[in-house]
């Protein structure tokens, strides 16, 4: 076995035995990430379903009897109130409707309670729209006109996005982001201890005095970080997929489906995701090794890595919501980190072009080479090794 493999094996075993790291990096994300990602959508969806089927009290003042009947058939319970504003504010009713001189006025706490109040107001609006349609139909009939004059043409929407893109939806945009976070978390778990940690404990000097080239030692540490990063990403992604499936099987409302978050990947797409993830993990690991070697202690390394995390990951939050607006010029796929996010996003939505993918891979491979050279140099630079 090559010396770098011994080094890698030692780092992996050492990290695996650190129960706290394993819990924080492998177990908690797998359990908590699905909860954070799908939980809110699930709750909203559930609330929506319950609001739709349940009966809510609505304050009424001076409403025509036909409207009251329409409210009842829309699962709304009309309650006479003297002061609609006070009734809503005291939450005696979810919403209140007042009819005055041809005008319906709706009172609600829509800003304070956007989900529940919003859903009830929508129910009220639907009932009022139905009443309006009824009045319009009646007037047209009296004038001898057909109802179709109001709809001289119809409009139909057809979403031609690939099936994968439709399933991914809004939440799908978060999956590349989480994937990249998992990769960074996995690499960090190994690398900081294997570099700054070794310096601090005084084990690095003994390792560097063995008849093994420092390049092999650097490669071993990078490989261990890479393995952990990929394992963390795979387990994190599996957690998201399994969690998503579980939540979906219990979800009742439409909101959950509208939010998306389901991934329907072919074997080919999984392979493309894996290759991209490995390249990105290699880049991040090499960067972390280079930065970790510069630090004199575990704590110091964390102070270097935190800004690096902010610089590398936080901009992706913006991208998560703005990627629709990007003109996908090929040069975007040459930008470090950014290109990997775009590639993940497009692979998941089955929209990636071969050229974009090849540019992403080759540019990331170049970044890996540069970062690896930097990391290896830090293992031979005595100014870095014995920095006071």
């Amino acid at each position, binding site marked *: 076995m090559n010396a770098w493999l011994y080094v890698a094996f030692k780092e992996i075993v050492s990290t695996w*035995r650190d129960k706290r790291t394993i819990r924080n990096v492998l177990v908690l994300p797998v359990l908590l990430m699905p909860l954070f990602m799908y939980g809110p959508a699930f709750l909203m969806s559930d609330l929506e379903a319950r609001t739709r089927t349940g009966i809510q009290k609505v304050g009424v003042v001076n409403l025509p009897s036909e409207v009251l009947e329409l409210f009842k058939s829309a699962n709304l319970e009309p309650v006479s109130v003297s002061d609609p504003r006070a009734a809503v504010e005291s939450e005696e009713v979810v919403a209140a409707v007042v009819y005055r001189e041809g005008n319906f006025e709706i009172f609600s706490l829509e800003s304070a309670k956007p989900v529940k109040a919003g859903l009830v107001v929508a129910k009220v609006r639907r009932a009022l729209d139905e009443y309006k349609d009824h009045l319009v139909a009646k007037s047209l009939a009296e004038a001898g006109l057909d109802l179709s004059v109001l709809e001289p043409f119809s409009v139909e929407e057809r979403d031609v996005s690939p099936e994968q893109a439709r399933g991914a939806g809004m939440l799908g945009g978060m999956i590349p982001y989480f994937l990249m976070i998992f990769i960074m978390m996995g690499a960090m778990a190994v690398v900081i201890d294997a570099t700054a940690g070794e310096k601090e*404990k005084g*084990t690095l000097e003994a390792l560097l005095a063995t*008849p093994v080239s420092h390049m092999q030692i650097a490669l071993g540490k990078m490989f261990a970080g890479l393995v952990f990063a990929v394992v963390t990403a795979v387990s994190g992604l599996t957690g998201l997929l399994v969690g998503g499936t579980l939540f979906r099987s219990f979800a009742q409302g439409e909101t959950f489906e509208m939010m998306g978050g389901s991934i329907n990947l072919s074997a080919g797409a999984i392979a493309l995701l894996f290759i991209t993830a490995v390249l990105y993990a290699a880049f991040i690991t090499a960067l972390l090794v280079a930065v970790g070697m510069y630090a004199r202690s575990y704590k110091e390394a964390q102070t270097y890595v935190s800004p690096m995390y902010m610089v590398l990951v936080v901009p992706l939050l913006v991208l998560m919501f703005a990627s629709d607006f990007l003109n996908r010029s090929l040069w975007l796929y040459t930008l470090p980190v950014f290109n990997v996010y775009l590639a993940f996003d497009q692979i998941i939505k089955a929209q990636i072009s071969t050229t974009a993918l090849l540019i992403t891979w080759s540019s990331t491979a170049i970044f890996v080479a540069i970062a690896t050279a930097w990391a290896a140099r830090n293992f031979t630079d005595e100014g870095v090794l014995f920095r006071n």
Partner: protein
Amino acid sequence: MNSASIQTKRLRKSYRSADALKGLDLELFAGEAFGLLGPNGAGKTTTLRILATLIKPTEGDAWIGGHSVRSEPLAVRRLIGIVNGGMGLYERMSGREILHFFGRFYGLEGRVLTERVQWVDQVLGIGAALDKKVQEMSSGMMQKIVVARAILHRPPVLLLDEATRGLDVFARRALLDFVQEYKRSGNTVVYSTHVLPEAEEICDRVGFLHLGTLLFVGSLDAVKERYETDSLERAFIKAAEEAEGAAA
């Protein structure tokens, strides 16, 4: 030159602010323990790090077993073992796992590796610590594993830098006894310390290093004769005062 000996010629090391070593010339031979003595900041650690190929000299060169630290670092590293007082161990590994990990870098595998681990166990009396995780070991036990790691490949040159730092009286005694035994087996031991009585006990020759300059090299008898005192500590102080007087 004997293959297990050390030679340095005009060895100089400069850092940005100052010269840590100012042209060190030394010759050490197989079967001797050489005490590299001096206060903190004298250049002892720098010398040992150069010999261990961890840092490069600014000028000059050093040879171990005929191999240059500049041009043949891997060959040099096969011939040395290094221990310093601040060296640690992998806390989540057992003593045996650590020795196996390091042994493989010297080409030790299978039965040979097992026999070497048995040998260091016998020589250092490691016992139960071999199968304990480092985080469960006492500091004395940890230091035994650090020494075991350094001699597992039976290096003809052993570099010890403040190796007794932080050790209790039993662990310190065991280490000093081991160094004498290792020297008697024909190996070269470089014992760097600022605790002069330790050097007095185990070294055949000593070198006084002060502010990067070697002030004196010779046997313990030669020290006493040159500085007219029985105390190595007093001799060192005299040497330092003479050097500072000459510089002034």
